């Protein structure tokens, strides 16, 4: 990759505009399909999350065999990751890949068919969990044992198109976002295949079972969600600020250090468990070293946005992406701290683990995906978001709720862990000490439910072609606050401009 490939083309020619329009048209069907079904799954996941958090405080709420706390909790996490996370991510990957490769998507129908099978797999999995067929002891692998081939095959069908597009790209230009997307394409099927072969096919894993499961769940976060979220951030930040990424070398360092370090992490949550001590030791070290790619990416993004912070105020995509970047920093710092020997004493198997999970899945990944969706959907539907008010509402409800959700879970985890680690306190102290925070968590889930309802409704209007047909792009604030004279000589593009 050459240095100048990172800089934006100096001028947008009419041919470019026509080509982009053609790409957007070819990706319209699969991208909208993935976004819509992802948004529906997100809404369902929010319902499950709300129900699970209520059930931990009022166990008798909706007393049904199919809705006991463990089943609802497993359904929630899996719907969030495989229903929402993967599908939103795939939509974003397809569109960014097509745009950066400057090639039309040749076979959108295959992707939509594969998407239907993915939805089928997730639906069967969730129904299996609720009906009592799941593996509820394996973290993030709770789907019944027979669903994994469906998901794996479907995913492979989708990434084939990613690779075809990449091979047909305009030669000589490779963007950092494409690296991240390809890394996400290849790593997840590998981890999923290995994990399922060992745990669901060969079995008899003994203590290696939890080791592999925690390794896998960490990889889903750090080698699937992080690459996809960062690919979207590396695409959107330069687009909206109209500047090239600050440093090409920093991006390279961040990418390869993530790839080298992340697959070692995960098992540090078993510190003190009956596993050979080198396993959590290796994993905890890798988790701390993962601060390197985090600092590098954060620095790079910060320097790219620097001077254009007023755009975070008005552009929905940039605001969500910016929030997601902060979420990424928080996730890495929390994982590193909680994987340490000192704190694991208090956080072993406590709600603090849920806090890290929610920070990674929601504060970082989900918010970054919202940013990408607010950017992509107007381009593929050819209409603008209906009102900025709804976007504003969605942002503030989500931001407020997910920050407090993570803080409450973290404090609940420490109270629970401290009670479990105190002399003379019996196990029920942990339940009683954390109960107050769990009540607070219910309120946060109600806010998230409202936020995701607003989002789902807004997205459906766009998909049903009922967005604003003409006019300037929708901004968070109706009229951007008077911006001081542009600092850069480059024209400041606004949201929705064909940049």
């Amino acid at each position, binding site marked *: 990759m050459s240095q100048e490939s990172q800089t934006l083309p100096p001028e947008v020619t009419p041919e470019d505009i026509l080509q982009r329009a053609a790409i957007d048209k070819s990706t319209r069907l699969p991208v909208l399909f993935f976004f819509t079904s992802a948004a529906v799954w997100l809404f369902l996941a929010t319902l499950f999350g709300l129900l699970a958090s209520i059930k931990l405080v009022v166990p008798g709420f909706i007393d049904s065999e199919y809705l006991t706390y463990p089943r609802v909790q497993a359904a929630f996490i899996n719907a969030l990751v495989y229903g929402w996370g993967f599908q939103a991510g795939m939509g974003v990957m397809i569109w960014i890949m097509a745009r950066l490769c400057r090639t039309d998507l040749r076979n959108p129908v295959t992707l939509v068919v594969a998407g239907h099978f993915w939805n089928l797999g997730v639906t069967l999995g969730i129904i299996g969990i609720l009906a009592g067929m799941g593996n509820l002891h394996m973290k993030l692998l709770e789907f019944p044992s027979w669903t994994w081939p469906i998901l794996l095959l479907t995913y492979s069908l989708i990434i084939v198109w990613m690779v075809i597009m990449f091979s047909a790209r305009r030669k000589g230009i490779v963007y950092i976002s494409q690296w991240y997307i390809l890394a996400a394409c290849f790593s997840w099927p590998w981890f999923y295949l290995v994990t399922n072969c060992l745990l669901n096919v060969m079995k008899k894993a*003994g203590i290696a079972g939890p080791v592999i499961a925690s390794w896998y769940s960490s990889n889903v976060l750090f080698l699937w969600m992080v690459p996809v979220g960062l690919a979207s951030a590396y695409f959107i930040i330069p687009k909206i600020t109209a500047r090239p990424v600050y440093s090409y070398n920093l991006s390279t360092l961040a990418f390869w250090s993530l790839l080298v370090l992340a697959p070692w992490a995960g098992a540090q949550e078993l510190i003190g468990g009956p596993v050979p001590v080198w396993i959590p030791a290796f994993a905890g070290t890798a988790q701390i070293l993962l601060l390197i790619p985090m600092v590098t990416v954060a620095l790079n993004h910060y320097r790219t946005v620097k001077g254009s912070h007023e755009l975070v105020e008005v552009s929905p995509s940039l605001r969500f992406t910016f929030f997601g970047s902060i979420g990424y920093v928080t996730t890495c710092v929390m994982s590193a701290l909680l994987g340490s020997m000192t704190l694991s004493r208090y956080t072993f198997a406590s709600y603090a683990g849920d806090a890290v999970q929610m920070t990674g899945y929601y504060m970082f990944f989900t918010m970054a995906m919202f940013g990408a969706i607010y950017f992509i959907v107007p381009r593929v539907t050819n209409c603008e978001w209906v009102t900025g008010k709804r976007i504003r509402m969605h942002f503030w409800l989500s931001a407020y709720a997910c920050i407090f959700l993570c803080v409450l879970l973290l404090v609940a985890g420490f109270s629970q862990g401290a009670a479990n680690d105190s002399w003379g306190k019996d196990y029920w102290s942990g339940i009683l000490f954390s109960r107050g925070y769990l009540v607070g968590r219910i309120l946060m889930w109600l806010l998230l439910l409202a936020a995701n309802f607003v989002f789902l409704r807004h997205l459906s209007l766009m998909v049903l072609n009922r967005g604003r047909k003409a006019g300037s792009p929708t901004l968070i604030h109706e009229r951007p606050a008077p911006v001081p004279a542009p600092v850069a000589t480059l024209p400041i593009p606004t949201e929705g401009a064909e940049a």
Partner: protein
Amino acid sequence: MNSLKSFVLAIGACIGVPTYIMAVRPYAIERERQPVAYQTTAPDPTTPAPDPEDLKGLNYPASFPGDNKRGELVYVREGCAQCHTQVVRPAYAGIDQWKRYAGKEQVYESDAPTVVRHTHPWDYMHEDFAMFGIRRIGPDLTNLRYRFLKPVAGVTDQDKWPLDPEKVAWLYTYLYNPQAIHEWSNSPSFKHLFETKKKETAAGRGDALKFHFFEDKAKEPAKGHGDPLKFPAKYPEKLMPAEGEEIIPTDEAKDLVEYLLGLKRTAPLPSSITGIKPEPKK
């Protein structure tokens, strides 16, 4: 790095090595794990001294909680592991070893807690997936069996004590409705593992749920430390079966209880694992 092939190879190298070391290797170690014989003679002076004589000819572990596959399946399916751990961490990582209800010290003779040994990989042999648990919201279940034993006068070895049928009946009632016993409990009810049937005889079946145990207050376990194994003075009316009916645990509930009552991981470790010299037998 412009070629897709070199890129894929580089990614493969990055994730291939950790896949082997962090996943495949631990798995292979588990598959090769064998029970360890207790040593009775020291091959040479540098090795630890022999284990006590009465363990001669035995292997560690001698029994496997994971052998109860039907019960384990119910445990998995109902998601018990989402809230219950089966891990006793060593002293460097927490105070699990001194926690009440962690192991053999269930029957108190004094206020001093007894040390429970921490869990070892051998304790999870024969399990398809060691039930470490995802969260520790409820109590740890590593040594659940010891909470349901009936003390026998004159026998100090708790492993030789039989199960107390009244305490086992308590466990069934607890699974049926935890809040009836502890109103602060946040455990879900597993009513679907029970069925309500017409009484066939006036006395009812032996395995039906019994309510109002320990009517004789003298028989109720001592509450020295807030013993959780107690029954409420009165059950909520809606839980009680109608006249002429009784609540029978299904086979699944019985398998689950059998699995739970088989959970004990306290067998002494061979000195070849611990490297600690056992105390000579007097």
